[in-house]
């Protein structure tokens, strides 16, 4: 029912014109053409052209290899990322809300945060071996810190007037946290989650290049090692990009929920 209200006092945002909707497609077409032109001009036989990549992708899809690798990568990201959400968001809220806890934990968080997840690969293999656990751990770690930091910042950014209003109406304890602090911080929590998911998707590819035999990262390294199949290397890269883009679109939809969107429209 909320959709029936026009935003009063704001101009209604114009729908994108046909030309502006076509612009991204045009950019992709220009890039593909430039790629094709560069291949033709250079006369290379190693680097594939766009059509070689399409044929490589179709071949992988027909053999069922592609779906298996995509599913393996997505499964690792889902487990590692959702595990990180489950711990990072409550911890971030607690650290943002409780000054003593923040003082105690923040130095450790700030010290661990800048360490590249790739640097953890040797330790991950040492601790978890060469199965799924290592990449899942790396994904967990890589998405954990942006989400903790985003959530803390979100809680700190909850405007004082809302906290004072809650105090005035006698709202305290868990009710205050659940219905005032959490929604007040939600926009930044979601931003942290978006960054976390982006990093998770970056890291899964890197993690799968080491000591594992499935996933899109493995597909890239295996295609290169097994006969310099750069058409398959680029095909895997394009697929990684497309899936990353799709995951970000999903996160953006969360930003459009009314209880999150208020932050962007005021």
């Amino acid at each position: 029912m909320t959709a029936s209200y026009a935003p009063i006092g704001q101009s209604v945002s114009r729908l994108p014109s046909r030309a502006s909707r076509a612009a991204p497609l045009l950019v992709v077409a220009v890039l593909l053409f430039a790629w094709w032109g560069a291949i033709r001009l250079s006369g290379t036989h190693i680097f594939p052209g766009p059509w070689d990549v399409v044929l490589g992708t179709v071949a992988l899809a027909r053999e069922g290899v592609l779906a298996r690798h995509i599913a393996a990568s997505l499964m690792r990201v889902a487990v590692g990322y959702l595990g990180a959400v489950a711990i990072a968001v409550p911890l971030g809220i607690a650290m943002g809300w409780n000054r003593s806890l923040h003082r105690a934990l923040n130095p450790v968080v700030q010290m661990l945060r800048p360490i590249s997840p790739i640097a953890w690969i040797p330790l991950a293999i040492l601790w978890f071996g060469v199965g799924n656990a290592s990449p899942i751990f790396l994904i967990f770690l890589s998405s954990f810190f942006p989400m903790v930091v985003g959530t803390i910042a979100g809680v700190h950014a909850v405007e004082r007037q809302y906290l004072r209003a809650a105090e005035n109406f006698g709202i305290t304890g868990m009710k205050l946290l659940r219905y005032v602090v959490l929604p007040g911080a939600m926009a930044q929590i979601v931003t942290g989650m978006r960054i976390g998911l982006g990093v998770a998707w970056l890291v899964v590819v890197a993690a799968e290049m080491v000591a594992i035999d499935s996933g899109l990262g493995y597909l890239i390294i295996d295609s290169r090692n097994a006969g310099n199949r750069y058409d398959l290397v680029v095909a895997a890269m394009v697929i990684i990009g497309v899936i990353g883009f799709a995951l970000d679109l999903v996160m953006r939809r969360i930003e459009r929920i009314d209880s999150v969107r208020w932050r962007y429209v005021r």
Partner: protein
Amino acid sequence: MSVDLAVRDVWKAYRLDQGRALAVLEGLNFSVAQHELVALVGPSGCGKTTLLDLLAGFQRPDRGSISFGGRPVERPDRRGILITQKGSVFPWMSAWRNLTFVLNGVPERDRADRVRYYLELVGLHDFVDAFPHQLSGGMLQRLELARALVVRPEVLYMDEPFGSLDALTRLRMRLEFLRIRRDEPETTVLVTHDVDEAIALADRIFVLSERPMRIIRIVEVRMEHPRSMADPRAVALKDSILHELGAIRD
């Protein structure tokens, strides 16, 4: 009329760096009667907002006492609701939810009736599902007022409540507020820069000095509502208040 809000010898200073102190209130005394609307008019930075914070319990006085209905004010509570220019309706909740959320301890069956009554009172009955960002500035202030009234407070503290609205909406809100007050005549302390607004709404106007704040004069406004600012009594009253505030010189 019985005394509702009593301020007795209230002192307040802020500590600055290097041991200096900024005196805001030095022995302030006044009282407000039940159902009375008192407007506080004074220069910027004279301590009006600090005074409202003290009255509503968000700050404690260094010395002196503030009591309401015979009970001392020690912390914010729903007996006295503070409404500010900045607004504090929760933007992540619909209009309806903003009101039901603050109704702690009210039985479920009474809650809906009460919320409906107050949204209707402020003219927002067609916007129950609207989120604050979908409302205009005037509608937002009315929602703010409805949320304050729904808990049936004994006193309203209003800090420049219409300050962020355009001139026309301000005038409309004054009339709306008077209409609402006919049904819900809560004791009200209104802080405003706008002398017209004080004259249009108040039973008494306290003219305040610069910091440390003291009451220069208390004016009883004996004009019937709605008050016209073209009324010679209003014009004379406005001139005298502006003189006292130093805005007009002879």
